[in-house]
């Protein structure tokens, strides 16, 4: 039996760098100068006082925690030892970038949690060691690279309150995501003209517009597709709530109206600030998922005029099958473009193989849905949403290792379901659906919902995309399926093609998932969603659903803070639902600067 080739191709990491050391030294001196200036301007007395305050606060916290534990009954103590702490608000402190400590999850789960913590470190270090110098050097060029140093903290944040199987499954999915991110970060560093400047690698790199899935790259096994803005903007904005603020400010100073969606705005802002690596053989822009995103590609073309661009512009009314022929032609032209730019040839066998994997992954996704639709949902929380977005869709079956993780998660899932485990221990009060575009700067909001109010998000809109198995034998039908998939990709599936896809669809999903609460994101700059808010409100009320509207500005926490978002829910839960919180410590805490 033929051995499956390693993924990603190790040759990509071995590609020769052409680092301009003179330029690196110059940059290093500049960065060192900045740090030197910062150190000089630092008020060391104040710095010392702050540390003393921090230590005092730690001491106070520890003694409070000790007193609280000591005041517990023996049963409560045993419960805390076995299943962990219950007051998660304690983990936050005003002015801190990260939680004050890791969570106590009970003996067994804490040990497991530390094992996964170490495993993630292992994956990151192994991956970065594939070409360490350019990877670390990125930190001297790009502020977003620094934010990736905090991925463990991000992991902790998304797993807060999780125990048992849900914790284990979430860890596995988190690992997949960070492996995908780390491998791409190394490649970005190697290919960047400022940094690794590897011409050998760049010949093999096809850049994709953020949110455009990579399935088409299945037919080019010798190349690698990288979602261009995903790492410098999109993904990191979920890890660090403040990372996009400079991008947004820069592009608004440039002249872009402040009412545009922060996703394309941040992407354009990152170009204004020169925060995107200059690399790759070509760029595939796309018409996804909204008017603003369509427009951002002209900024890429302006910044990098030497980067050939193909505009993949699928029809908007995608349910009208009359438009499909043109979409298929567009896919064919795109394939031809990649062939011309890279010299690679489209390989049907490789494509079908990766699509078969993707179909299998889709089946695993559907299995999660089936379980979550029952009275015993198992895999819920931020990790499942993030995995679906960053790994299942973006990787799209290209990485054979993902299947292993899928199998592992599925096994845990089915076992937990059979044992009727509680996905959030003692916190299963309400079932909710999340609708519309979520705030990147509050990626773990569903986690807070469950921990504070027992509102369990069983599914979110962005997951509910195209799930039909893609054709793996007939070539013409395969291209049609590929076009259908892209047309129905994340967000686009709902925001394009008519209001039924986002309004009527919601009512259908509420019924299927047996949810009567809708966490309705009100992304203030999303025109596609803002233009149906009245209908959603009217029809939702007629159906007797609880629509909790939560305003946010996607990547700009200055417009609506996390605290305001929480307060909106708390107010609804108290006044309309007459509910009391599960964890009062989570009602009010400061995380304005917490990553």
């Amino acid at each position: 039996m033929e051995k499956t080739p390693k993924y990603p191709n190790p040759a990509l990491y071995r590609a020769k760098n052409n680092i301009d050391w003179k330029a690196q030294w110059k940059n290093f001196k500049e960065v060192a100068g900045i740090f030197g200036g910062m150190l000089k301007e630092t008020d060391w007395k104040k710095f010392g006082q702050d540390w003393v305050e921090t230590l005092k606060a730690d001491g106070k916290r520890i003694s409070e925690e000790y007193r609280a534990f000591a005041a517990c009954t023996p049963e409560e103590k045993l419960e805390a030892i076995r299943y962990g702490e219950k007051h998660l608000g304690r983990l936050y402190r005003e002015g801190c970038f990260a939680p004050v400590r890791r969570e106590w999850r009970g003996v067994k789960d804490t040990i497991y949690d530390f094992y996964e913590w170490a495993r993630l470190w292992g994956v990151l270090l192994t991956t970065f060691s594939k070409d360490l110098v350019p990877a670390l050097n990125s930190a001297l060029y790009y502020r977003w690279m620094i934010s990736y140093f905090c991925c463990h903290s991000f992991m902790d944040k998304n797993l807060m309150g999780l125990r048992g199987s849900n914790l284990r499954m979430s860890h596995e999915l988190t690992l997949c995501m960070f492996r995908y991110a780390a491998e791409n970060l190394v490649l970005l560093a190697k290919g960047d003209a400022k940094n690794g400047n590897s011409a050998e690698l760049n010949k093999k790199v096809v850049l994709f517009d953020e949110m455009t899935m990579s399935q088409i790259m299945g037919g080019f096994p010798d190349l690698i597709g990288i979602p261009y803005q995903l790492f410098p903007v999109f993904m990191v904005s979920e890890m660090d709530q403040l990372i996009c603020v400079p991008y947004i400010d820069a592009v608004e100073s440039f002249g872009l109206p402040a009412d545009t969606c922060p996703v394309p705005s941040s992407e354009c802002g990152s170009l204004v600030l020169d925060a995107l690596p200059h690399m790759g053989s070509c760029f595939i822009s796309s018409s996804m998922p909204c008017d603003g995103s369509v427009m951002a590609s002209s900024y890429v073309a302006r910044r990098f005029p030497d980067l050939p661009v193909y505009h993949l512009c699928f029809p908007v009314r995608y349910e009208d099958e009359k438009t499909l022929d043109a979409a298929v032609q567009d896919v064919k032209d795109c394939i031809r473009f990649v062939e011309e730019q890279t010299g690679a040839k489209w390989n049907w066998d490789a494509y079908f193989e990766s699509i078969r994997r993707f179909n299998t992954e889709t089946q695993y996704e559907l299995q999660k849905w089936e379980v979550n639709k029952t009275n015993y949902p198992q895999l819920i929380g931020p990790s499942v949403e993030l995995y679906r977005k960053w790994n299942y869709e973006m990787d799209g079956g290209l990485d054979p290792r993902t299947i292993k993780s899928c199998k592992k998660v599925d096994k845990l899932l089915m076992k937990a379901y059979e044992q009727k485990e509680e996905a959030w221990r003692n916190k299963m009060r309400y079932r909710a659906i999340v609708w519309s575009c979520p705030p990147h700067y509050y990626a773990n909001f569903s986690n807070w919902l469950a921990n504070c109010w027992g509102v369990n998000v069983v599914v979110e809109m962005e997951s509910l995309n195209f799930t039909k198995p893609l054709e793996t034998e007939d070539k013409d039908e395969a291209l049609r399926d590929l076009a259908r998939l892209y047309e129905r990709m994340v967000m686009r599936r709902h925001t394009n093609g008519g209001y039924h896809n986002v309004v009527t669809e919601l009512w259908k999903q509420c019924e299927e998932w047996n949810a009567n609460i809708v966490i309705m994101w009100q992304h203030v700059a999303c025109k596609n969603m803002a233009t149906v808010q009245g209908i959603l409100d009217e029809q939702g009320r007629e159906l007797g659903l609880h629509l909790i509207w939560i305003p946010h500005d996607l990547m700009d926490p200055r417009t609506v803070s996390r605290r305001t978002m929480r307060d909106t829910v708390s107010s609804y839960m108290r006044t309309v639902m007459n509910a009391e919180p599960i964890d009062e410590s989570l009602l009010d805490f400061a995380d304005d600067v917490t990553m």
Partner: protein
Amino acid sequence: MQKEGVTLKDLKHLIYFESLLEDANNELVRQAHEEGGVTLGYTCFHIPEVLLNVDRCFSVRLRAPKTGSLDIATYYMSNYTCDYARALVERAIEGGYQFLDAMIGVDACSAMNRAMEHFEILNVNEKPDFFVTHTDMPLKVTDYYIDSYVEQMRVNVLDRLTEVFGVDTSDAALRAAVREHNEMCAIISEIGEMRKAEKPIITGYEFHIMNLVSYTCPTRLILPYLRETLVELKTRKPDSKSPFRARVAIVGSEIDDPSLTKLIEDVGALVVSDRYCFGSTPGREVIELNDEEDALKQICRHYMEVGECARYISDEKVQQRRDTADRLAREFHADGIIYEQMKYCDYWGFERALASHVVHEEYGWPVLSIDRVYSNGSSGQLRTRVQAFVESLEIKRIQRERGAV
């Protein structure tokens, strides 16, 4: 013969034209309807106007004159969305578009698409046969996307008209519609060319009014007035001394509010070119048809090729838009360009921000970059900004005259 005067002599039909713009269901629209015409509303350039003037149909490009509060539309569509789209929904809810027999919508931008959907969902028109179309509009111009566009227009527009109203949409009928359309376009274009003169015999405001009535009234009924106005203009004498201090070209998104042009001209800038949605470029080019190819395909190709909407994102279209802005400004002897955008329009928001830099840096044009609401006549802020721009253009001219590089 009129002598070169102190001020331009009033045009005979200008006040009548202005009155036609006071109401979407104006006198000529009512007349055409009473004569058995089928009234088809549309908003977007991407619906070829000429297709809606086939057989006994006639097109009305929808406006919402005298727009006041947008409260109800804001409830449905939020206050962060295009004013034009909301103004249409508000007017529709008020019952202002009951006169329409059908609404020919296109899914070209999200706000307009949703506005058209609200027409349906909220049942704003009580006519039993009233329908709204939602056609797909490609984002780039290739042979296969032109074919797709043609099919959309055939199936979703023309076939629906035949099916519901028994309209003849044959090739011959389309060619007849193109002939009438071309006559109107030729007149508007000839009038528009008059703005190139050093001392123009028409103001930007007057042209704006004439161009708007050509969009909002039945072609057959407005043509006689336009013909007569063209003759009148040919003998009109320019001002002995131009009251304007500068000449500007406007580029950008939808403007159906002539008071914006008036505001700009009131502060001293003659509007010589109108490269915006509802303007004459594109929109008033003659459609050249050959006898060999299907008329519908030629019409659709024409609209896609001359289209200047910012939603066309392919490189050649982006370049076309910048070149067109530069060409028009040069041909009409503008001193500067005003890039404008309807507030909350994503397409033009991104386009304006970038193009206003490019056109300044690469083409050397002084640029004023503004965003604006649907009704602008009384905007003090806008007036101040245009005033400042006019002054900067004047200073540049004085410096040029003094030999500055």
